[in-house]
């Protein structure tokens, strides 16, 4: 395994017309880190995730993943290299069952995603899939259609699909958005337990300051496409400039 950061972005820039969604973003994410990204709407958090995962091509700058330059690669290539992500609006297979969805990720992880003769329902994958659904608290829904999942369950499944790919870096875009206040800490507890068990390097974008305060070990604050603060949650989240940028008040 190469030494150094898992992810390093250098001077990433992206503009949409006159709007600078990413403005010289340079960050390093070390192995095993648990990083929260905060920022107001339109501050460039999701754009950063979209650039890192290949959904958007940067106008300028470089993305180094495990030491190799991945700038401009397609999402599926980035995924194969070890970067997985979840979405603010869960991206699921609503016509498949929960287990089938997960089996597809397990097949992809095993390099068997395009196998067209051997069955997808294989004992080993089923056992692994059910075990993983258990860890995400979704085992009871295993054979139910994805469309029947509650919102919190959809969020968890979206992340489980990425987690099943055994990534080296997991990026989560607002894992608690759309989840009720009562459920969001339960969702995060479940996620963080899985992350802690695997020591997976994780970055999550989040609006909720309480969630970031409670679950991240490091916080990066974005404003107008720029990194305005980076450090321990206690320091960053109490910074008046950050609070003003994120919450609109100091």
């Amino acid at each position, binding site marked *: 395994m190469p030494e150094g950061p898992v992810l390093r972005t250098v001077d990433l820039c992206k503009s949409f017309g006159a709007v600078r969604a990413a403005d010289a973003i340079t960050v390093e994410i070390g192995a095993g880190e648990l990083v929260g990204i905060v920022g107001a709407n339109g501050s460039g958090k999701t754009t950063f995730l979209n650039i890192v*995962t290949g959904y958007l091509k940067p106008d300028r700058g470089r993305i180094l993943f495990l030491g190799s330059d991945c700038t401009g690669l*397609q*999402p*599926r*290539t980035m*995924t*194969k290299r070890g970067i*997985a*992500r979840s*979405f603010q609006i869960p*991206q*699921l*297979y*609503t*016509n*498949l069952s929960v287990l*089938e969805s997960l*089996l*597809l*990720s397990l*097949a*992809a*992880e095993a390099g*068997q*995603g*395009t*196998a*067209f*003769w*051997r*069955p*997808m*329902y294989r004992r080993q994958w089923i056992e692994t899939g059910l075990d993983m659904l258990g860890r995400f608290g979704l085992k009871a829904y295993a054979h139910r259609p994805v469309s029947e999942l509650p919102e919190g369950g959809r969020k968890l499944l979206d992340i489980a*699909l*990425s987690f099943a*790919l055994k990534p080296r870096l997991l990026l989560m875009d607002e894992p608690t958005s759309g989840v009720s206040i009562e459920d969001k800490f339960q969702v995060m507890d479940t996620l963080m337990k899985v992350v802690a068990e695997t020591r997976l390097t994780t970055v999550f974008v989040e609006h909720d300051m309480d969630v970031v305060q409670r679950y991240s070990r490091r916080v990066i604050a974005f404003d107008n496409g720029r990194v305005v603060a980076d450090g321990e949650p206690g320091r960053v989240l109490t910074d008046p400039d950050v609070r003003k940028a994120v919450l609109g008040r100091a």
Partner: protein
Amino acid sequence: MDAKRLPLAPVVGGALLAAVPFVLPDWMKFLVTLAMAKFAAVLAVALFLRANQVSFGHAMFYAVGAYTVGFGAKWFGLRDFVLLVPLGALLGAGVAALVGLVMARYREVFFAMLNLAFSMMLYGVLLKLYWVTGGTDGLSAGTPTFLGYAPSREYLRDALYYATLGVTGIVVYAVFRFLASPLGFYLKAIADNEIRIEYSGESVRHVMYVTYVLSGALAGVGGVLAAFTVGHIVPEYSFWIQSGDFVFVALLGGYGSVVGPLVGSIAFEFIRTYASKYFPNEWQMVLGIIMLAIILFRPGGLWTIYEGIAARFGRREHEVERA
């Protein structure tokens, strides 16, 4: 599909089909043979319907299969069923491998209409190159042999029927395996979420392409079987109305299962035959009314009638066991 219950259906269905030559008159035997032949092409279209993609051009590969038989007989004296079925599949897959390079990039209306465009180009070629293709006069399929064995005229129809049934069984098994594979599930997932597929590290275009090649092979097989059944091959095999028929039949039978298109194909041949007998000037209207009824009352196709009954019996058995 319920894996514990449904295997009974293919067994019973296979037994019923095996009994056809003993219980049905020759003209009905012909209809069922033709239905099984077209079923392979309908299944090709049904694969894409699972991904919410409709093709109005798969008659192109059906024609490739049929003309494989015609050219085989005309130029090489080939008439052997066992040789020409895989050859038709290979050529259908080969043409699909070329056309698929374009098709795998498109979805929805573009996918539908580009398929139609390619099939109509082939239709034009088949029509105009009459010194090669026979033009509107077409080509003769010749009398088939089976591994060199030539059945007497008396048994030819039955031999062809059982050979077609055997190929149908292989097609059902192969497509069932395909749909149960990861790629088969990814195909279904295209209807839901292409973004998630790409973020799983898989290529949607690859899934489309492989399926397209398979569908070309299936329709090619259908063309070979139909050519032997009818005995004559004409450019209309590639015409867009033929492609439309395949889509119609897939919806009629239901594309959610492998067997649904077979049910639809058999039903279609009989409905069309009886409709044109009793309503010679309005038979298309009869088909339209039936399609309307299917979409309104059984959007999953005729096969869902069986599934509904099977589910009801399954529940009853379960209740009896619990009692």
